[in-house]
């Protein structure tokens, strides 16, 4: 019988929730790595018992943990993230140049085909790759050669937070960086180019044709259509039908087009989810109502999903890596909040239940669908 394993990273540790296919009752394990910030955990699609976790604190720096038994036991792996060559500089908040400095790993993306290969998106923004299960890491430096001197940190830091691997083309990878934009490689990470045409950031960037500098908050794709990308930008929900060559806005009737996460339904490539946040200065839901918005038309037309979610006095945020879907039928949708709640909808967003209510602030949510 199928089951799901929900991997939750929080400000003070990690938690793992498991349930059968009904997704009504949950077993909880954790906190794992108590007291540490867990920015992200993700399992290998090839070997679901292999899970990678990013563990850090401001005191003791970055660690990478790996489990080979579904999260029961963990082993520290390599934690040396050294930029290739002379790191150089990027733009600082005041417009001056600032040296590249490693701070933490925001996102881990295991390979679709090899459990020993995993990518790490880091702050200050760069992409690293391990081919030995996380023991050693090597930067793919071609990315920072794409006008890296013009990248600048967003409010959360200059982080590479999104890594999308194209299931139809092992040489194609998409990444997104705050605040640099979206980038694509077609040669396995050797060379990159910005894919930001059509994005508009009138208050942050000097010109509408700026190639880099856009504050992308998250990107998503459906594995059956890797050329179709969805993006939650600082402001605006965007869509590209040509692998990022051109973007168009699909914010439509959303109450706010500011937000962080974006996700695609497991079985309906035109069904997407966002969680609108009031504004860049007020990171909580409009009107104090926590609403997931679903579009069944690939954007443009959106409906509020509220059944089971707090509809008054709710002032939490949902961070960029804190929403995910499972592959069951019907598709389950999950998200975690900065208030420590984790919600699950086992029916594609129609009804929501709380599977955790009082966790530390949730940084990330990933779901594994187990046979």
């Amino acid at each position, binding site marked *: 019988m199928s089951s799901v394993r929900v991997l939750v990273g929080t400000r003070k540790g990690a938690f793992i929730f498991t349930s059968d296919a009904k997704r009504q009752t949950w077993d909880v394990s954790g906190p794992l790595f108590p*007291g*540490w910030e867990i920015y992200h955990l993700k399992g290998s699609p090839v070997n679901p018992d292999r899970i990678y976790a990013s563990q850090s*604190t*401001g*005191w*003791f*720096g*970055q*660690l990478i943990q790996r489990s080979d038994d579904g999260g029961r036991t963990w082993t*520290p792996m390599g*934690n*040396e993230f*050294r930029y290739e060559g002379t790191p150089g500089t990027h733009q600082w908040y005041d417009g001056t140049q600032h040296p590249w400095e490693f701070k933490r790993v925001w996102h881990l993306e295991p390979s679709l085909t090899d459990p020993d290969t995993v990518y790490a998106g880091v702050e200050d923004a760069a992409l690293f790759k391990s081919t030995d299960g996380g023991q050693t890491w090597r930067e793919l430096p071609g990315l920072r050669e794409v006008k890296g001197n013009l990248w600048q940190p967003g409010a959360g830091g200059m982080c590479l937070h999104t890594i999308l691997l194209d299931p139809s083309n092992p040489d194609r990878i998409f990444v997104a960086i705050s605040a640099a934009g979206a980038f694509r490689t077609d040669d396995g990470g050797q060379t990159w180019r910005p894919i930001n045409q059509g994005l508009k950031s009138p208050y942050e960037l000097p010109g509408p044709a700026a190639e880099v500098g856009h504050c992308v908050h998250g990107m998503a794709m459906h594995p059956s259509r890797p050329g179709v990308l969805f993006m939650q930008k600082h402001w605006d929900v965007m869509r590209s039908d040509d692998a990022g060559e051109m973007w168009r806005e699909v914010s439509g009737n959303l109450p706010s087009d500011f937000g962080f996460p974006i996700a695609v339904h497991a079985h309906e490539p035109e069904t997407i989810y966002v969680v609108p946040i009031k504004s860049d200065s007020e990171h909580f839901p409009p009107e104090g109502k926590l609403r997931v918005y679903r579009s069944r038309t690939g954007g443009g037309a959106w409906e509020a999903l509220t059944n089971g979610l707090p509809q008054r006095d709710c002032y939490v945020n949902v961070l960029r890596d804190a929403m995910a879907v499972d592959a069951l039928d019907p598709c389950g949708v999950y998200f975690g909040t900065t208030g420590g709640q984790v919600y699950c909808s086992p029916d594609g967003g129609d009804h929501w239940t709380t599977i955790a209510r009082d966790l530390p602030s949730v940084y990330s949510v990933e779901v594994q669908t187990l046979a």
Partner: protein
Amino acid sequence: MIIVILPQHLRTLAGVGREVELRVEALVTPRAILDALEARYPVLRGTIRDQGSQQRRAFVRFFACGQDWSHEPPDAPLPDDVVQGKEPFMVVGAMAGG
């Protein structure tokens, strides 16, 4: 033997108790102690000092014999009481919010 006291998170990480005993063959300095500590417990590499620059991490402090050694040169000789194992070399997580 040199006695090193680690903060809780690093004890958990290294799988040790409050105190660690180390043999340091060279002149006993903060750098020599940390070299020996990391050689014995490789998982601690990068947690006390940066792996590239070897600089002390900003929110880590060193104390010995009631003195703050955080800002002393890494090759400064430590007091005899530390060398003789009468006093510990303490690695401390600095007070900082969170």
